[in-house]
């Protein structure tokens, strides 16, 4: 795995702001409106954020695992 230089031009900060705003807005509306409960636990207020965070963590873990298993090589098959 390469030691990459940090992103240039504050794009990471911009992405952070974008994501934070989206998450905050979404969670605020979900909890603030007092919407009726979903048809299962995954559709309850706040569950979408947990699903999203879980998906991101799973992506990172999958990438890390793939690197460990397949190592640094030339290309994909």
């Amino acid at each position, binding site marked *: 795995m390469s030691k990459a230089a940090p992103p240039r031009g504050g794009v990471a900060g911009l992405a952070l702001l974008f994501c934070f705003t*989206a998450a905050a*807005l*979404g969670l605020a509306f979900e909890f603030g409106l007092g919407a009726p409960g979903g048809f299962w636990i995954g559709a309850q207020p706040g*569950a979408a954020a947990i699903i999203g965070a879980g*998906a991101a963590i799973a992506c990172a873990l999958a990438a890390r695992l793939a690197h460990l298993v397949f190592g640094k090589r030339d290309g994909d098959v």
Partner: protein
Amino acid sequence: MFEVVLNPGFVPILAGLIVLAAPRIVRGPIMAIAALAALWLLLENDFGAAATMRQMGVETVPLDLDALNRIFGIAMLILLIAMAIYAGARRNRYEDAAILMLAGGAVSALFVGDLVSLVAAVALSGLAAAWIVFASPLEGARFAGVRLLIWHGLEGLLFLIGVALHLTATAGNSKFVRLDAGSISGACMFAALLLRIGAPFAHVWLKDVISHASAAGGAALSAFSTMLGVYALARLFPAEPVLAPIGAAMIVVGLVFAAITDDLRRAGAYALTAQTGICVALIGEGSPLSLAAAEGHAFATLLAFAALQMTLGAMLERAGVRRVSELTGVARAMPITSFLHFAAALACAATPGFALYATQAVALEATAHWEQRWLWLLIALTSAVLFVVLALRPTLAAHRAAPPRPFHEAPFPMMLGSALATFLCFTIGLAPNWLYALMPTALAFQPYEIERLAPQLAMLGAAGLAYLALRGVGLAPASLPARTLDVDAFYRGPVASAGQWAGVLLLRAYGAWQAAVTRAGYAAGRTLDRLSRLWDRPFAPVRMTAATQFLVIGAFLLTILLFR
């Protein structure tokens, strides 16, 4: 009275023949005019079978328009206009012709009304797809084209067997009816369509050909190949229960490989497999709302992923980059293309404001039942994973600090074509009622109600925050320089190489065994020959030979006496 029935798909096919002989300057306009003419033919005709004719004793229906094929046809033909603009930057007349043939074959297959014509049109689109790959200048494209021919040959064979059995069983009636996947004919056609959509274990052909096709070819293959299979499933096997788990498996396989693949065009192909899986699972669910959601989702997927492949192709064409690990500094050299890529990736991730969000909201509504909660979860997960994989990861890599790169923006026609496709996603996403009105089931749906919008915003935002946090602490790798293995590793790649070596070793062992047996045979023959020659001369002056003869004959007689 003589009546000419022109399937809208015939127009791009004819245009494909014309562009083979046309100069470069008019090839783009011919493609665009062909798409517009086909669109006009599609919108001008009324619903219903226009005419039937008999071909070799079988009744065929060259044009049968309804709401189901209209929505797919509009998507493909609108996209062909964007492709015409995009392809203006290149000089390959064969590829232009192949793209038109592929689009024409796919659109023809949408609008025919019988199985025989469907097989013919699907076969034409398969051949054109292989031609696109053969026309690519990238390394390994010829082999990828041959592999695609094998896949499509298998698909065509299964289709032909299925149709032949169906014709036998129905006394030559080849008109579309709902088929039973449990019958032999239905199972053959079902299997052929599973190959076409890229079901698990057959999903590898799509990423193989997209990654080996040229910039325009990759976008065309992304748009006109798998969605034809989705249409055919919706037409021939609606509410087939086994489609739901197959679609779910496609989502899982697509997302996992998209997450670990470094090559962005392959990641896009895997992501397309995941979104196609959503359409397939919804067709399997079979309720009117699910079917409407599947058709709308196919429409939006087609546009969004073609836009994504166009922007990735533009980067490949100008800068030669295709991997996340090679993107460093690209945003500085190609800011407009990078922005277009980010917008197309947001469209693919069902970000609110884009068409895929509007159709994913319908899909979530259709699966919001206790029995289908796992499918609901997979559909919801898809957008979060694709947001991280297709939008965030490449954008962060492209903005990494680097010395100035020796290239500039993508060619203008490429940027214009990509922008048009992304713009279409955006406009349809902002005003989705137009798309809902096209669906076969009348749909009064408000995707931007706060109860639907808020969870999507929260999910994408939380996914982004979690990924950025993991990147910040170094747990999420910035690039993925790993060689991923998929099912096709069994027929190419390291597993196939190991198999080849094992085969060579086995062949050598077999050769050595054969040589040893031959030598032993020769030796035994020589010994017997010598013995027989000696026995033929009983008075030869060798005592041992006479003694041997005596012993052998004695043993023979003793054996007979003892065991008789």
